[in-house]
């Protein structure tokens, strides 16, 4: 396992930028399509849509920078980005953690079964994107506070949210899983078809 050189770091920076752009696009699509129907709740599907659209970037990156550390850096920088630029600060933790985990998977399985490794690591990285869902919890908090001010009893509020919290959590996880797998498949297909002539660096 070789250390990252300057060239790799520049590559990682550029792919992180592309990953960020595709994430922003995914974010926009989700908010635009689902946000009108259910404000706030639409953020549940952000990880899924992000997973769906950013596959090609990821697949090309692990081909161009096949070294341990690359995916971790993507995770850490995305986390920092969310932290500084207006998402909730704790978003940093899942992204950095999932980046590291995806990196470990990719570097340990990458040699023996590359296909499994890249699908699996992509799905793991996509789960890092669940950070932006967290504000929903605070939105709910504010909503509950306003219900209390309206004179609703605690039982009423519990009744409203009891079926939602568990189910939404599950929906979010499942949607993310499906979106990420589909995105990984699209990404792998595009990259295999168009970038096979570019030799993978050793």
């Amino acid at each position, binding site marked *: 396992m070789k250390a*990252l050189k*300057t*060239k790799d*770091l*520049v*590559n*990682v*920076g*550029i*792919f*992180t*930028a*592309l990953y*960020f*752009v595709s994430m922003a696009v995914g974010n926009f699509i989700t908010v635009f399509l689902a946000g009108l129907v259910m*404000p*706030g709740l639409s953020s549940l599907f952000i990880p899924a849509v992000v997973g769906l*659209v950013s596959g*090609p*970037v990821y697949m*090309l990156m692990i081909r*161009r920078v096949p070294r341990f*550390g690359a995916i971790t*850096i993507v995770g*850490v*920088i995305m986390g*920092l980005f969310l*932290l*500084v*630029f*207006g*998402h*909730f*600060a704790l978003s940093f933790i899942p992204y950095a953690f999932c980046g590291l985990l995806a990196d470990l998977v990719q570097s340990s399985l990458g040699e023996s079964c590359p296909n499994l490794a890249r699908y699996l690591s992509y799905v793991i990285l996509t789960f890092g994107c669940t950070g932006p869902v967290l*504000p929903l919890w*605070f*939105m*709910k*908090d*504010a*909503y509950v*506070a*306003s219900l209390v*001010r*309206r004179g609703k009893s605690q039982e009423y509020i519990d009744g409203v949210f009891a079926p939602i919290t568990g189910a939404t959590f599950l929906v979010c996880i499942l949607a993310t899983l499906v979106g990420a797998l589909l995105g990984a498949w*699209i990404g792998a297909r*595009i*990259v295999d078809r*168009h*970038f096979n002539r*570019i030799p993978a660096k050793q």
Partner: protein
Amino acid sequence: MRPISIYTRFLLVIFANALIFVTLPTPLVLAINIYFCSFQVIVGRVRKGQAWLLVCLVFALGASLAMVFPENLPGHYLLFLFVGVGRVLPLVLVAAFMMGTTKVSELVYLLRKIHAPQWLVIPVSVLFRFFPTVRHDYAQIRRAMKFRGIAVTTGDMVRHPMRTMEYIYVPLLNNATNVASDLTSAALTRGIGDPGPKTSIQRIAFTGLDALMCALGLVLMGCGAYVAMFQA
């Protein structure tokens, strides 16, 4: 037009993130939001500041009307919109300010100053400078697609999402790989791989204005903390 130092900016980020944990009365929230908007005006983006101020006022109005919304689905929808989304509004305000006015060189200077590792500094500095390239490339790609009669309208793009993705991603990624190698050569020539200390043309001054705004922020934060404690 006065610059706001990067230290003040980070205080803003911390403040906005702390704010999301607590429920505050509407007037105080409005005051804090106006405080965030004022930064846009200070750095000279008056129109942006006015626009955000309007958004804040709408949300404040919506939140103060929370009691009169009817007890049905649209009523709850509006309530959730104003109260729920209003809760994350400070974050959005700070993000709009940070995104629009933070210089990359300042950010890199700060990262170097706090001795962030090289594996963080290089990607971050590359990342921000690459965004304009992406936008430019995307415009070029779209023009080329239209020229060849592929996905001329937005509707066509939506109808064939797979094809759209492929036609946009492949040239974009192709160009990215080229830019990466060019940029590496340029950066290495300028000595980015040199282990010695780096200099920066960027000077960061913490001015009286910064001190004033920080003090104001701390006062508002204090008020927020006091009210939050008092409520609990």
